[in-house]
């Protein structure tokens, strides 16, 4: 942690939500969110200024991204509104190849003059860096798509929903938690709209309108006399959806074990906050787990992060090749293992897919940030490592000639690079419910929701926790557990996967703030799965006495 993080934490309590400052633009009045912004004809004219300037300055390739990023965040605690934030960021980023080398520059001066200047700067950087470049950039071919557009299929635009309605919803959820035994509750609603225009010298002009939403909370219950406190996090997921995610439709609810309410494509925040308060209180007196080997039954809102850390990250090609060695790390899933075509990443029933098209997911877009139409592809099929995640300038390194379409930049003023697509575990093919799964377990633990997570820099050894834990004995849930964390090794863990519930149990989890690169950039990504069983996993007891 850097010194500035000390300052950020000043005055913030447990459960306080951190907003990375990178996400912020300039503060604007709420009505300004509805301003349509620059029209697409003007965007095309301005993008062409960048492309033509680059070409006449000697660039062999150029792309321009005109981006308008609108964010609205609402923060509350108990019966108070802490903050309502509306921000806008607008500008253009120009990337070029000159002398076989990348160059990038950006400006918030989106005029002919401003764009020419930024483009010339990008070309100058490329030419300067070409002196130390060892191998010229090699781009995989991409079709020319002409003028196309894509929109997140939303039903309700968050920008048209009054702030008061959002505040009311959060305060109602907080009140429900307080009435049901919570001592503290912090809740927040993050809403994002990326309006991105992409043009490149390959002949594509792509206009996209992307929406994301994330409601979340943390509920804390306290026993002052025992000096104990316990928290339960929301069972929501960040989604690539509009405000309709907040409707709390019964048809999207799944009745989980132990009275848990689980949510698919619609979230009932008040219902979840009510149960969260009861469960936080129950955690205060829950049985402390006996360390040892258990069969784990992992719920998708929990398993999503395990997939993210142990499958998503190790299969990023730039990590595998060493480009991230000084920050995020490298990977155990080396090229030589992949080339054998027989590396057993998981058991035969494990199929892990990368997908930039799944409806409702955070990673879903029509085209990536270098103008490649998105798709779905296998990473692990029948347990065997089959592919990586790679973009236009990388795929030739794994003897492929088509980009996977997973290039992304967090903003117009950051350069795009390879980012994790949605990575999901396919549902089991046979009819099999969560109740069927629990019935089959003799000694196990059911883990739901997101908790503590940590994994090494090559993605072998990990330790994860959830937000609630239930003991399973002889096919039945017998009570709540506490102080649970499991430790395993990626390959061992995925090879211990013996059962996966069917598609009726499938739902997606996600992260708004996946970080990578230096300087760091964030990216939003989803991970779908059905409840899955992993046999004989090492569980430790995390309780300590001080």
């Amino acid at each position, binding site marked *: 942690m850097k010194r500035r993080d000390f300052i950020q934490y*000043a005055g913030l309590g447990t459960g306080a939500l951190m907003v990375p400052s990178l996400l912020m633009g*300039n503060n604007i009045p709420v009505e300004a969110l509805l301003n349509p912004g620059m029209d697409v004809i003007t965007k095309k004219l301005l993008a062409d200024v960048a492309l033509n300037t680059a070409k006449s300055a000697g660039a062999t390739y150029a792309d321009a991204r005109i981006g308008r990023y609108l964010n609205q965040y609402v923060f509350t605690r108990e019966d108070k509104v802490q903050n*309502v934030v509306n921000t806008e960021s607008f500008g253009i980023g120009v990337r070029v190849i000159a002398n076989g080398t990348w160059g990038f520059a950006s400006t918030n001066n989106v005029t002919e003059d401003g764009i020419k200047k930024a483009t010339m700067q990008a070309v100058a950087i490329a030419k300067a860096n070409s002196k*130390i470049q060892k191998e010229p950039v090699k781009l995989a071919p991409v079709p020319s798509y002409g003028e196309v557009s894509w929109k997140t299929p939303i039903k309700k635009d968050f920008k048209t929903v009054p702030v008061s309605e959002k505040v009311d919803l959060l305060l109602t959820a907080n009140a429900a938690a307080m009435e049901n035994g919570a001592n503290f509750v912090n809740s927040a609603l993050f809403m994002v709209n990326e309006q991105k225009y992409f043009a490149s010298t390959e002949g594509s002009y792509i206009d996209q309108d992307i929406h994301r939403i994330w409601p979340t909370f943390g509920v804390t219950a306290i026993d002052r006399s025992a000096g104990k*406190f316990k928290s339960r996090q929301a069972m929501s997921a960040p989604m690539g959806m509009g405000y309709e995610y907040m409707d709390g439709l019964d048809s999207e609810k799944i009745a989980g074990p132990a009275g848990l309410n689980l949510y698919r494509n619609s979230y009932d925040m008040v219902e979840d906050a009510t149960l969260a308060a009861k469960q936080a209180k129950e955690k205060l007196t829950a049985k402390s787990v006996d360390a040892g080997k258990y069969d784990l039954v992992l719920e998708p809102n929990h398993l999503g992060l395990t997939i993210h850390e142990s499958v998503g990250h190790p299969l990023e090609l730039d990590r595998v090749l060493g480009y*991230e060695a000084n920050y995020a790390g490298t990977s155990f899933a080396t090229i030589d293992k992949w080339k054998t075509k027989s590396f057993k990443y998981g058991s035969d029933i494990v199929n892990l897919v990368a997908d930039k098209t799944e409806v409702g997911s955070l990673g879903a877009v029509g085209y990536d940030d270098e103008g490649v139409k998105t798709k779905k592809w296998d990473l692990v099929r029948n347990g065997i490592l089959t592919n990586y995640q790679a973009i236009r300038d990388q795929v030739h390194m794994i003897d492929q000639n088509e980009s996977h379409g997973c290039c992304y930049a967090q903003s117009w003023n950051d*350069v795009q690079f390879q980012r994790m697509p949605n990575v999901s575990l396919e549902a089991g093919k046979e009819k099999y419910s969560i109740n069927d799964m629990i019935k089959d377990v003799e000694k196990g633990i059911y883990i739901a929701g997101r908790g503590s997570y*940590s994994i090494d820099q*090559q993605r072998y050894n990990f330790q994860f926790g959830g937000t609630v834990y239930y003991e399973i004995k002889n096919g039945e849930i017998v009570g709540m557990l506490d102080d649970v964390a499991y430790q395993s*090794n990626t390959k061992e863990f995925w090879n211990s996967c013996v059962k996966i519930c069917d598609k009726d149990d499938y739902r997606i989890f996600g992260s708004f703030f996946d970080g990578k690169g230096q300087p760091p950039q964030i990216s939003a990504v989803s991970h779908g799965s059905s409840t899955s069983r992993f046999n004989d996993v090492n569980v430790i007891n995390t309780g300590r006495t001080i």
Partner: protein
Amino acid sequence: MAIYTKEEARQIMEKALSFSTADACEVNLSGSESGNIRYARNTVSTSGHRSNQTLVVQSNFGKKSGTATIDEFDDISLKKVVERAEELANLSPENPEFMDILGPQSYDDAVTFSEATSKISPDYRAEVAASSINPAVSKDVTAAGFFNDSSGFTAMMNSKGLFAYNKSTSSNFTVTMRSNDGTGSGWVTRDYNDISKFDAVEASNVAIDKAIMSRKAKAIEPGKYTVILEPAASIGLLQNMFRSFNARTADEGRSFMSKEGGGTKLGEKIVDERINIWSDPLHPEVPASTWNGQGQPIKKMNWVENGVVKNLSYGRYWAKEKGVDPVPFPSNAIMGGGDASLEDLIKSTRKGILVTRLWYIRGVDPQTLLYTGLTRDGTFYIENGKIKHPVKNFRFNESPIIMLNNLETLGKQVRINGNLIPYMKVRDFTFTSLSDAV
């Protein structure tokens, strides 16, 4: 030009305040120029330059406040941003915890600016990369590193007459060296306000030596070990501990600092009596800002004295609720050390583990401040006062409170991430599993 002098900053802020019609108005002005270079696989991958300037305006009507920002400072823009802040204030709900802006304060002059750092050129950055890459190539290792430098100012002014200004520079360097046989990895970090203290060749060689020394590590059983923690290894756990030095969460009963039955651990001994932790923005090795974004002066402050909690931070609202003076969170942390060098600490160890760095540290239980994470980039077994061989990396599950209670020896202090932290020898550090990661 994003860096304004004190007078230029004063004029811009006075102009902005002149447009205010709110009950109170406060403006924060900042600007910076920063540059970076990134390299991997023994070649430069990216380099960049960024220039930022921002004016943040906060306007208040009673307990309603609005904030607006702008990056252009002509009269029309300044008027527009003040109007926008007032518009937002009028629309916003009342904040029951709103605190009125402060009046004039007196601040110490910060010593955070270095002329040399402010003049770093792209050539200098390329030279830093070369200082890693060239020796790496000759020693059969691969370098991946990042160097960033920044020069800037922050200033604030409000309608009650408060004025503050500070100029600062910073630089950060990290490099990972991996042996080309894939079995060894070394790492180093350096950060300075004054770049003339930085020696990229010396730093890079530390990482190269560790990469070579850590090749072909042997597995030893996880368990409780005496460890020598380099400051880069302990800093993560210590900073997580410092975060709990917050009076409000302690009073609310949801922090390690909360006491059983009510109240807080202020005044209680929580760690070994040789532990002293304080903050001091004027310390010449780790200079920091002498005021914070709310205009509160930051002075030298004791946090842990002889193992006893001496202060918790109080925000202005919570201080008022509790009838005490506000205690701003510090801008740096200094932990008292001893005379022992790293070599001395190794020499005096019969059996133990030397840890270069702890990584991916995450909270496991906020009640006991239990954290998990892994060793990385150079972990070595010590026997009878000598490094015997590299060992495979471990996962740990440990609380900084237990760590500081199990203190054996404090060594020399080293600057790390703007803080001053000593080498430490600690007994019974808990490693819970092995990792194959290099």
